């Protein structure tokens, strides 16, 4: 009886699950089971408390043996949750696992209906449709693909670094590709980290140099992925390595070329110090940059701009590492899995002009203040404002570009805590009066609340209210020359005007401006706000809907360092799981071309969202790469000659299901 071929007399076993009270509370499961028992072809029809439990599964196995069942239908929850479970049970009973059909009467019926009689009728309709459908199921064999053991990690911030080291330490070969000239990401710019106040550089730079020195990691900075082809286990990735005009293998980072540059002082905004200091056209982003290699910015270098430079940098280098004629290099690599850790960008505070960023020099973003209080920052850690003064009063405005339908709707999760940290640091550096203006303090992390307590004890002001405006309109002599913050102190219920010397905008996190391009490159999805979408918000937080592509860190949504690191570890583990299992079984619901019916019209080629279709130029027919096919059915519907079929979605399966739903009588079929 095992491995039936679909042409014998159907003997269907049907099982309706109570799911405790979830289903049985809203649907008369007994009535459903009794009804299905009357349908043609049904041999066994039962209801059971928890079908997904071991005894539930054993019930199916036993019935297959006792009653020679050859088709199984379970009416329970979403196939996303337990389709796999019941296919296994079917297989254990001795049948091909695809002789199984699942009916979702929980999410689709019991949870969304409050009329028990109607819900029961709907459940019966769905069950009848599934019974009719399953009769036409065929035996299928899932395809296996090998997993290439190398991994690509995109983005060299803390998430990418942590994932790279985890995999490399497990003995896997990792390509770490970073767009900037150094790895380190945003974390490298931070001063201290909440809530422990350990210095960001002290905990990050050892990991950065581990990356550089690890034999299993190939580090490509100043590089970008330009093309991705293939499928899980077998990706071919093209990486463009931009010319830094300095030969990486020769440069030792002595920086004599920088001293020798014809610019005696820095002239252009220094990206690492968020524009608070100036750099030369030839520079190293920051002292612990990794790799410790000089880069020449062609946008600002005189030689590139006019060709009239004495090229003192070349002369100064005794290792001949400078090559102004360097070209970009295209590398092609094969990897089996990819971890995207492309990070975030900060909210552009110019978008909320009422806070005066860009208009008043002493209004800063939080990232600027990170540099300003940092010992290696533009002022050597001295808190000197843009106008040369030292602040006696500081206002920190929370939720700038967060929780606001006019800009970004979401909570950026980290701002409360980093604002508290900056409040502490500013107080420590300047002994200024520090005011926090917040809507709600979100300190939900391990020892975060304790940090908030500490700040309260430090006599930092906490004013609950969203600031309406930062203005230089002085309404009292005491406000002259100050920035005045207008806010309602909502705890007291009165509008206050608070003059300060310095305003810090706690800017939120948002998706990187090119997140959509990365999304398309790797064929994954984004949530409405533009962050990369995980496969399941709770149970598959680092998977995507594309097999073998994982996400970690802030490209998935706002999060702090501990959460980014945890996700990076999780993504590495997911990749390891695939690599060490050696191969992956693909869902056999793929499409295939019936060659004799294909007219070679090419209309299917362009519409496949997964690039799974190609044309066999010799035979002049379309072919489908089953490893790439996701079973979306687009080509099946589009084929004008009906030459494309899809496993588990054959015409007779779908039509029988529709007939069953509409309760049309079976006519003209030998299986009724």
């Amino acid at each position, binding site marked *: 009886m095992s491995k039936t071929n679909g042409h014998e007399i159907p003997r269907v076993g049907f099982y309706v699950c109570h799911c405790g009270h979830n289903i049985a509370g809203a649907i008369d499961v007994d009535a459903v089971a009794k009804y299905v028992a009357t349908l043609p072809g049904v041999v066994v029809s039962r209801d059971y408390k928890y079908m997904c439990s071991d005894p539930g599964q054993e019930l199916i196995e036993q019935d297959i043996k006792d009653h020679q069942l050859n088709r199984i239908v379970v009416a329970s929850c979403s196939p996303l949750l337990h389709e796999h479970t019941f296919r296994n049970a079917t297989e254990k009973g001795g049948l091909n696992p695809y002789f199984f059909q699942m009916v979702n009467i929980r999410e689709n019926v019991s949870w969304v209906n409050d009329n028990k009689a109607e819900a029961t009728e709907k459940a019966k309709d769905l069950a009848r449709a599934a019974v009719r459908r399953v009769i036409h199921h065929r035996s299928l064999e899932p395809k296996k693909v090998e997993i290439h053991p190398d991994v690509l990690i995109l983005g060299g911030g803390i998430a990418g670094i942590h994932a790279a080291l985890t995999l490399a330490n497990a003995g896997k070969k990792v390509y770490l590709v970073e767009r900037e000239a150094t790895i380190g990401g945003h974390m490298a710019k931070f001063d201290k980290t909440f809530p422990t106040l350990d210095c960001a550089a002290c905990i990050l730079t050892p990991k950065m140099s581990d990356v550089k020195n690890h034999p299993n990691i190939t580090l490509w900075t100043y590089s970008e992925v330009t093309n991705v082809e293939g499928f899980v286990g077998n990706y071919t990735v093209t990486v463009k390595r931009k010319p830094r005009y300095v030969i990486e293998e020769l440069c030792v980072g002595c920086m004599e070329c920088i001293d020798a540059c014809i610019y005696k002082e820095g002239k252009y905004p220094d990206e690492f110090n968020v524009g608070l200091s100036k750099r030369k056209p030839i520079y190293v982003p920051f002292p612990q940059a990794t790799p410790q290699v000089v880069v020449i910015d062609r946008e600002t270098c005189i030689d590139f701009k006019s060709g009239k430079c004495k090229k003192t940098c070349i002369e100064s280098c005794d290792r001949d590492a400078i090559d102004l004629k360097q070209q970009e290099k295209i590398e092609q690599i094969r990897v089996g899995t990819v971890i995207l850790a492309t990070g975030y960008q900060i909210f552009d505070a110019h978008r909320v002009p009422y806070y005066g960023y860009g208009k008043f020099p002493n209004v800063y973003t939080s990232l600027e203040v990170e540099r300003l209080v940092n010992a290696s920052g533009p002022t050597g850690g001295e808190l000197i404002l843009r106008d040369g003064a030292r602040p006696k009063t500081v206002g920190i405005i929370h*939720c700038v570009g967060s929780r606001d*339908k006019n800009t970004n709707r979401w909570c950026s999760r980290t701002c409360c805590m980093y604002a508290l940290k900056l409040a502490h640091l500013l107080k420590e550096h300047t002994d200024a009066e520090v005011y926090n203006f917040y809507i709600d303090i979100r300190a939900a992390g391990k020892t975060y609340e304790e940090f908030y307590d500490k700040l309260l004890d430090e006599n930092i002001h906490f004013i609950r209210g*969203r600031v*309406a*405006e930062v203005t230089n309109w002085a309404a009292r002599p005491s406000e002259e020359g100050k920035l005045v913050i207008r806010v*309602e102190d909502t705890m007291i219920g009165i509008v206050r005007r608070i003059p300060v010397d310095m305003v810090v905008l706690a800017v939120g996190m948002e998706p990187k401006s090119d997140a959509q391009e990365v999304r398309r490159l790797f064929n994954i999805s984004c949530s409405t706000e533009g962050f990369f979408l995980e496969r399941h918000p709770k149970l598959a937080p680092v998977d995507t809907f594309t097999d073998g592509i994982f996400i970690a860190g802030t490209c998935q949504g706002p999060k702090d360092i501990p959460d980014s690191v945890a996700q990076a570890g999780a993504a590495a583990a997911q990749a390891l799981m695939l690599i060490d299992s050696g191969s992956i079984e693909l869902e056999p619901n793929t499409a295939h071309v019936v060659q004799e019916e294909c007219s070679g019209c090419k209309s299917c080629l362009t519409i496949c969202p997964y690039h799974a279709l190609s044309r066999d130029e010799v035979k002049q027919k379309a072919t489908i790469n089953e490893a790439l096919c996701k079973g979306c059915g687009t080509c099946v519907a589009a084929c004008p000659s009906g030459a494309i079929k899809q496993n588990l979605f054959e015409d007779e399966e779908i039509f029988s299901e529709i007939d069953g739903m509409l309760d049309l009588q079976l006519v003209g079929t030998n299986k009724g």
Partner: protein
Amino acid sequence: MSIVPIIPSLLVKDSPAKVPRKISRRIKFESELDLSFGESVAERAYGENLLSCIQCGTCSATCPLSHYMDYTPRRIIAMVREGFKEEVLNSLTIWLCASCYSCYVQCPRQIHITDIMYALKREAIARGGYPPRHPIPVLAREFFSRVKRHGRNTESFLLVSLYLKTNPFAMLKEAWLGTRLWLSGRLSLKTESIKRKKELRTILNAVEAEKGDGHQ
């Protein structure tokens, strides 16, 4: 009874930090609230987002008049939401709103606060629960009936009737300004009116008639 409107004299004091207060009992029993008030206001004021208020206070802080109000706009929203109908409809806040729409454009929840204030004014005027001689409802009523009658407003007559009905003595104060305006040709004493008055009245009456069968 004082002839001078009571409101102005209350207004201009700075915050009463040093004013001694009498002990009074303040507690609210759930049975005194109108729990459907929030939803009913939200419905009438295109304030469908009223219920999503997070009490951040942006409206109060951006409001140029909140420092004269008995309850800040944020508190009004909270009170509407929680059913403090009597307090809200008796508050001075709703009359002080000058419709400058600052809160409307800056609210992070995009709540139509100005529309909510209008809805509250309408409800207060409809039930007559505003202070006697309160100039704003009087002005609104005068304006309403003049426009309904003539199709246009004549500023001079509007002001005269406003002062007659609220504070006749204050008119004397304004007489000099009025004369200067008249002399410079900036105050017309001719009643402005449209030609097709009947057409306009038919339109407005049609709205009124429809209201009879629906909610306001």
